[in-house]
């Protein structure tokens, strides 16, 4: 059982992350992965960039704590959480959550739990820019509501 987290400017490779979750892992038949990517939010087709700010130090602690909570609650095998910061372009990946478990429901639930908690507790902030204008993304009530299912 292990929790690994990283906050990084560089891109991650989902295939490589998957390989690392599976390496020498014969006990867990199930792997669930969630990846969040930069969308082209603007419907007018304008290319938009995203800047991710975070709270260095706290971010890593919160991610590790969320991973530990999931690991305990569902008896997971491995938990891997990566989150990028800095400047991102449309189409680039922002966040990776990967979970292995002996049973598929544990893996899927653990993965969903982690991304839901990350969305409301991990100190990251998104700023969207499109041409010369930029604004901070507003938090969504639906993200807070999503926590209800884990109470």
């Amino acid at each position, binding site marked *: 059982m292990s929790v690994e987290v990283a906050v990084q400017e560089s891109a991650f490779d989902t295939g490589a992350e998957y390989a690392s979750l599976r390496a020498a892992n014969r006990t867990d038949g199930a792997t669930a992965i969630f990846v*969040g990517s930069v969308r082209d939010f603007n419907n007018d087709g304008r290319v938009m960039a995203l800047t*991710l*700010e*975070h*709270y260095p*130090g*706290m971010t890593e*602690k*919160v991610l590790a704590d969320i991973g530990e909570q999931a690991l305990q609650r569902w008896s997971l095998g491995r938990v891997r959480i990566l*989150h990028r910061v800095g400047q991102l372009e449309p189409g680039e990946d*922002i*966040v990776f959550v990967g979970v292995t478990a002996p049973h598929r429901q544990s893996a899927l639930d653990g993965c969903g739990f982690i*991304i839901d908690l*990350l*969305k*409301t*507790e*991990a*100190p*990251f*902030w*998104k*700023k969207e820019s499109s041409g010369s204008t930029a604004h*901070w*993304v*507003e*938090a969504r009530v639906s993200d807070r509501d999503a926590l209800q299912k884990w109470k």
Partner: protein
Amino acid sequence: MIRILFFAGLREQLDCDGLEIPAAGLRDVARVRAALGRRGERWQVALQRPDLQVAVNQALAADASPVQPGDEVAFFPPVTGG
């Protein structure tokens, strides 16, 4: 002293990413927030925003959370990562 940090939109609004304030009398988050609000109307308004989140020593906290000399207290808008 208490180390204060601001992030994202709040940092820009206050044009300040952090400062140190004397710890005397500031025994919880509510008192820290009130002390910062006395720095001027802009601070008063920005720090009373009801959905502001706060962390003490890098763990999410609330107005009633205790604060001690040497602590790090951070204020920030609701998080939007993921």
